[in-house]
């Protein structure tokens, strides 16, 4: 492409297009965007992707190790797993599971399994894949099972739903608080600004985890999973809004003196209109970047609280609750696969961090 043609395209491109071009240059951010989309897709189709009922316990398959799927046999492509045979180790009296080659279990696509509602309203029993036949104890345990014999892979997939949505919900509340208070602070300045800034400073200088623990522990035991979910969301977001408010305030302060704002004021536009129609659109990209940087912190908060046993409570399934099972070194020594629940946590946090980094760089495409 010749230089003049490129210049022409650059001159014609809108802000969104420019932002996207800038964003694309950050390769890691693009990859992270796909990872984030992938995880949210998993969250939406969680039950469909699960192979076993994440709540179904069975003492006969306690602490089964991860099972590999064999893709080929003597007849070519024919995915299957071997049934597992439990034996007691006569030295430690622990159950040891070994594959039993005589029992080959077929792995097929779109098999029937436990019943669930797709998207919350389409009742179905179809799952992406699973084993056909075998005893009730059999199944395909991609990541092994926990103490109660629940399939870790299915639980991880289903946990994605709560862990990711609680992050989104908290960040939404934080965003509303942040834009509102940050906006007020930046727009009016003076005494309002001083008060809000001091409040932010006070909140930031308090160690958060003890505070969360205190409030979370006071939630009544009788509350349902849904109530606890919303309470935890609120607790997390009430402390998390300060950074967003800081970003919004900074942008408002910077924009207040811009020519187009003065022009709008002279043209007789109302305060609200200037704020929402003229100023806010020019820094939405900054807000999106700040949000994607705030999300991982929210996810870590939920995971930490649930890990401590003060956040969500079983039967809710979240990454923190899964990690709670892996708290003990004695347990981990016998069933190290329980630590695999940490992998999606780290992946998602990493992806959001890179994504936020890329977005922040791209947020100001004229710079």
């Amino acid at each position: 492409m010749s230089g003049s043609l490129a210049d022409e395209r650059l001159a014609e491109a809108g802000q969104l297009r420019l932002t996207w071009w800038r964003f694309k240059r950050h390769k890691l951010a693009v990859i992270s965007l796909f990872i984030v989309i992938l995880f949210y897709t998993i969250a939406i189709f969680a039950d469909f992707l699960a192979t076993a009922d994440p709540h179904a316990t069975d003492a006969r398959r306690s602490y089964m190790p991860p099972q590999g799927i064999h893709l080929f046999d003597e007849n070519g492509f024919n995915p299957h797993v071997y049934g597992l045979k439990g034996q007691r180790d006569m030295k430690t009296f622990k159950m040891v599971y070994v594959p039993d080659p005589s029992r080959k279990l077929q792995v097929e696509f779109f098999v029937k399994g436990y019943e669930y509602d797709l998207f919350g309203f389409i009742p179905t029993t179809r799952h992406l894949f699973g084993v056909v036949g075998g005893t009730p104890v059999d199944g395909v345990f991609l990541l092994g099972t926990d103490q109660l014999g629940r399939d870790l892979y299915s639980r991880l997939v289903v946990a994605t739903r709560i862990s990711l949505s609680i992050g989104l919900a908290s960040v939404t509340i934080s965003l509303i608080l942040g834009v509102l208070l940050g906006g007020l602070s930046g727009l009016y300045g003076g005494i309002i600004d001083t008060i809000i800034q001091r409040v932010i400073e006070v909140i930031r200088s308090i160690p958060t985890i003890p505070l969360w623990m205190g409030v979370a522990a006071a939630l009544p035991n009788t509350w349902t999973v849904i109530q606890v979910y919303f309470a935890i969301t609120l607790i997390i977001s009430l402390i998390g809004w300060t950074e967003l408010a800081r970003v919004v305030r900074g942008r408002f302060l910077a924009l207040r003196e811009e020519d187009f704002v003065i022009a709008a004021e002279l043209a007789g536009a109302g305060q609200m209109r200037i704020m929402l129609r003229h100023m806010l659109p020019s820094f939405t990209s900054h807000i999106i970047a700040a949000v994607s940087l705030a999300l991982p912190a929210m996810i870590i908060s939920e995971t930490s609280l649930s890990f401590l046993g003060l956040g969500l409570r079983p039967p809710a399934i979240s990454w923190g609750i899964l990690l709670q099972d892996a708290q003990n070194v004695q347990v981990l020594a016998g069933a190290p696969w329980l630590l695999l629940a940490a992998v999606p946590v780290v992946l998602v946090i990493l992806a959001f961090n890179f994504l936020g980094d890329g977005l922040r760089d791209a947020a100001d495409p004229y710079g």
Partner: protein
Amino acid sequence: MLMYIARRLALAVVTCVAISVLTFIIIRLPPGDFVDAYIANLASTGSNITADQAQAMRVEYGLDRPVYIQYTLWISRVVGGDFGVSMMWRRPVTEVIGDRLWLTMIVSLSALFLTWIIALPIGIYSAVRQYSIGDYFFTMVGFIGLAIPNFLLALILMYLGFRYLGLSVGGLFSAEYAQAPWSFAKAWDLFKHIPLPACVLALAGTAHQIRIMRANLLDELRKPYVITARAKGIPERRVIMKYPVRAALNPFASSIAYVFPYLVSGSIIVSLVLGLPTVGPLLLQALVAQDMFLAGTIVLLLGVMTVVGTLISDLLLMWIEPRLRLTGHS
């Protein structure tokens, strides 16, 4: 300068008051009051008190008065050093907490020093050798450090230590010193156990601080005075260390105010995983048992100590930063 100190002091006092109000709310959050919980606790061990005695206790603790008076009564007791009695342990709260509060602060402060010692040279290196292999390497490590919640890191290290080294990682003392009174040998034992929890705690903060130092120094390095210094033939090492590094140090140092609360916060959950005798495990036990005076006191003391720590660091910062000292703001 006096204005600045006065402002910091006023803010610290306001923060402490805010923390005390929050603490009081936490103490009062569970249904029922302290006396109800006390009676339930007594009943579980078989003893009982009469309704009259319960009423007398309520009057004694002021529980029959309006909330704001209750708060005033509570806070005046606290200021006088009376934090109440732990229901779980049936001993004064201060006795139950004992050394744990100081150990929490020692662990957090060690993590803070470690953060600085690691972040400063790496930040300088990454900025001066921008886009070198080393810079990419530290950036990578930094991002991974940010992505692994510290309790997970503790868990993974413990598992690895157990699996491959046969060690039980964790604790702050060897078995023979755990119950022993303080002595030089015990302090030395503590010193030997500190590095692991300090590293676990410091990783995420270090990653963050490296980014800050790198970004600040990169901004400074592009300024004309650096070119001038080079043009005058000052050795490269002096050009960098003498001027831009010192200028870049200020935003880096002032971020300590946010790092310290974060470390104290993190130490609670890391202590649980690593079994450190800090206030972390005690706080969790107290919360689960709804031993609210113990839990509230821990939250309050942690908060206040964090504020004091931050205040001291702010004043130290003022001492090393002439711009702040002369104008009163950075």
